């Protein structure tokens, strides 16, 4: 009886140990959900409506190796694709008058796995004057 209890205890301990190991391995492997980040995240222009310029770098990673593409959904433009990859990096010269959205998309299914944004901000907000008219107060 004591032997049986001891064996049960050992089995339970070993099970917990494997569970802990598995969990530990999972924490240090590629994430369960995809991650997409951009650095820097904000581009500042002097005035609203000006083109803002910024060198940005995208980093992504995902547990499942497959074919993925980084897509600018604001302009509907594919920036770069990776074949059978679990992570990637892409840098480019961002130039825009407004904020742009970017997604990591599965190349075959089109499923969006992660998204991020480069935000365009400005110091002075301009208001265009009403055109072609005389004012009479």
């Amino acid at each position, binding site marked *: 009886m004591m032997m049986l209890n001891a064996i049960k205890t050992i089995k339970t301990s070993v099970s917990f140990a494997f569970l802990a190991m598995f969990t530990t391995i999972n924490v240090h492997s590629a994430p369960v959900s995809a991650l997409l980040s951009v650095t820097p995240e904000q581009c500042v222009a002097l*005035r609203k409506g000006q083109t803002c310029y910024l060198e940005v770098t995208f980093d992504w990673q995902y547990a499942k190796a497959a074919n993925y593409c980084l897509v600018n959904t604001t302009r509907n433009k594919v920036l770069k694709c990776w074949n059978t990859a679990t992570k990637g990096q892409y840098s480019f010269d961002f130039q825009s008058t407004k904020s742009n959205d970017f997604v990591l998309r599965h190349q075959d299914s089109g499923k969006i796995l992660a998204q991020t944004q480069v935000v365009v901000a400005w110091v*002075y*907000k301009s*208001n265009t004057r009403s055109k072609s008219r005389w*004012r009479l107060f």
Partner: protein
Amino acid sequence: MNLSINKLSAAIATLLTLTFATASQAQSISQALRGNSQNTTENYFEIGLGYTNHEGPSTNPRKLDWTGSYSIFNWSYNYKGFFLERFADKFTESTDPFVIGYNAYTNDNWSFDIIGSSKNPGLKLIGVAMGGENNGQEIDFVTRDSDFMIGGRLSGYFGNNILQFSVSQDIRRHHGRMASALVGRNWQLRNWNFHGLLGVQYSDSTTNDYYKGVRQEEADRSSFTAYQAGAGFNYNAEVGVTYPINEDWVYRATATVVSYSDEQLNSPMYHSTSGSTSTTFSTSISYVF
């Protein structure tokens, strides 16, 4: 009666008069060029600090240059065509404390405003009487009031180029007239905004004589000789750069050269070795609300 002058007061007052009178006409076009705006309006308020070096005509041969820090306090407010503006550095663009106006007409390329502003500040040259009933006392040698000029300002926007013409007349004191013509251009290189500006300003004899002339009774109680100033032209050139540090902070740097008319420089108020041009270099950082 032998009289001497409070040179520090005179130098400061005169310096402000000279730079103010020429630069104020360029205020709005310079603001538009720096901000890379095209016939737009904006409401903002900003405060900041700057550092400047200025050399130019002065009544004091030992105070022909000024270097130091200065505070910035600018704003622009627009409401249904009415606007209030203040865009001033210590010596560049304008030391015009305030511009009030009304946008009477605008289309894609042209804008016409009715504006009022004080283009010439008051002036007081103080000296110590050395003789007479006021012997040893400080007296006013020359006193002039600030003006308030009403006029029209026509601005043209063509791509990155801005033209601006203005005509105005004083309604407060001397009733003189001034006119100006300026052309400017801005360039954007990445997030750096560069601008250049050339201008000419005309002051009629009434305006120049009020601020630069010396009346006989003033000559009698001072070391000045009597002087009557005629009409003249001042010329100015400016280059600068503006950079948005982030959403709230702006960096600026400007270099300005102003060439003054002989009618102004021949005034006995100014020292003969002052030269005929002023140069100003300034750099600043401002927080924009």
